[in-house]
């Protein structure tokens, strides 16, 4: 542990753990940015070759095919990169949508209270009674086989979590002494809501949304694995694992291993960033 005196005389306590956390978070951001860039650039350069069945099937990883080929003779690396664009952008989109809608509904629930709060909370309880992925599967299956429907299903599955979190934090903040002090200082309800309650209660669902991004990728992969997400021949990590499971029996581990590794890396990166944001915003 070190204590640093800044020019203003203010002492900052730095712990080795905090510095290590910063480095890990930077590495996690680097992984995400790299995967996203590759996901955007590689398919542009390679065109539609990630869906083209142009190589011998089940070639093991080599310099020419770093992740090998699948049983349809498609390059697994190219498909992983195409899947990166879909999964990372989808994870971010789901997290952002669930954050905005969940925070909005949670804030309305906390602000209005009474019957509005009771109705919203009971509906939330109903949704939370089901495991997220099962709920998303039911919604996606009832909407139809389309990646957009799967994405909507995952958003709906995560909204109740963020509604609950936003509501509980908003209620906690509203009861805080600094809100009473603001009222005594002459702040109007709208000023209290936007200058005190929102900034102090929003950071918790914001941190949670980074974790939602990682869970959304896992759920979306699960939906694709079960056949209600991205449809063949388009690349998506969950669907690629589903495709490659049978190849394991033939001793070809790479068609399912590399998309699994991509999911692991991306989900872990979002989790690390979430932990880092949590520490920073505390």
């Amino acid at each position, binding site marked *: 542990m070190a204590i640093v005196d800044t020019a203003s005389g203010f002492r900052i306590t730095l712990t080795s753990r905090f510095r290590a956390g910063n480095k890990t978070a930077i590495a996690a951001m680097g992984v995400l940015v790299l995967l996203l860039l590759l996901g955007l650039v590689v398919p542009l350069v390679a065109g539609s070759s990630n869906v083209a069945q142009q190589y011998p099937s089940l070639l093991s990883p080599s310099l020419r095919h770093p992740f090998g080929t699948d049983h349809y003779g498609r390059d697994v690396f190219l498909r992983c990169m195409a899947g990166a664009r879909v999964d990372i952008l989808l994870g971010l989109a789901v997290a952002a949508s669930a954050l905005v809608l969940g925070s909005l509904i949670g804030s309305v629930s906390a602000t209005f209270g009474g019957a509005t709060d009771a109705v919203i909370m009971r509906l939330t309880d109903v949704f939370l009674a089901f495991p997220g992925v099962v709920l998303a599967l039911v919604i996606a299956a009832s909407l139809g086989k389309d990646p957009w429907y799967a994405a909507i299903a995952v958003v709906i599955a995560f909204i109740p979590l963020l509604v609950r979190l936003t509501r509980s934090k908003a209620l906690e903040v509203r009861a805080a*002494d600094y809100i009473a002090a603001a009222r005594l*200082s002459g*702040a109007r309800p709208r000023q209290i809501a936007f200058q005190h309650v929102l900034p102090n209660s929003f950071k918790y669902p914001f941190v949670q949304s980074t974790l939602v991004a990682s869970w959304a990728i896992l759920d979306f992969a699960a939906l694709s694995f079960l056949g209600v997400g991205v449809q063949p021949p388009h690349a998506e990590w969950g669907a690629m694992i589903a495709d490659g499971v049978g190849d394991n029996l033939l001793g070809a581990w790479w068609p399912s291993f590399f998309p699994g590794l991509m999911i692991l890396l991306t989900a872990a990166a979002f989790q690390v960033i979430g932990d880092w944001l949590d520490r920073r915003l505390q």
Partner: protein
Amino acid sequence: MELVLADIEVVYGSRARRNHAVRGVTLHVRRGETLAVVGESGSGKTTIAKVAAGLQRATSGTISWRPSGEDRAEAGTGQRVQMVFQHPVQSLDPSWRIRRSIAEPLRHLGVGEEEADRRAREIVAQVGLAEEILDRYPRQVSGGQAQRVAIARAVVSDPEVVILDEPTASLDQTVRGRILALLADLQKRTGVGYLMITHDISSVRRLATHIAVMYRGLVVESGPAAAVLADPVHPYTQALISAVPIADPRVPWDGVIDLPRDADGFLVITSCPVPGPCAEHGPGLHEIGPHHHAACTAADSPQKAGTP
């Protein structure tokens, strides 16, 4: 101006299970004076503070301002009531720098940014803090510093009355004395009136000019601080004052206050010579000395309540 709380009642709960937190309490807080409301937890003192601040509605009673001899020509320009809370760090917005928190009351009064900043710098100097503290966040200051910041925010808009809700309860002993000295100094300079909520009799001795003792939502004794502390009449006041350890090595003290309590956790008044008649609502306050009132039927008798 004088803040007058008249016949305040606060009732919680439904009709079937009503809980009278405050029962017919009347208090006067004058400029330049400190009224200390003392009593144990649950006596209704924090509720009365919230009602006085306008943070809670009274079930009945009135809150008004009455002209007094100490009025200033510019009275009424700022927020009339401000509050200093028990937990200073929690009373400051964690996402705001201290500069912004102190200037907030001024901004809501329409004071410009530059002027608000100048007054914020001026007030932190008055409460004994360095100007650098303005750029810190609440988590970056100590409890004592945070309480000074909270006091600065409370007085920056020049209020008539500041409510001090257990202002030293969360501070260590060495800081307490300095905060009380600061409050006394600010009162001397600005003439602000304090409504101090506390169960700390030693703070009362240092700051209070008047005392109101609350027991189960009622004021059972009130009067000038010197008279109430030197000659407490109501058995409850006597019990409260006797529970304070005496800083004298010759007086034995084992550090344990073991007074009997009822099922609700309230102190049981065992020393009352006429138990029974005031069990429910009490006999009401009546004058027993100059400005000294007590709700005790035995107070007028030749043998005062609680005296052997």
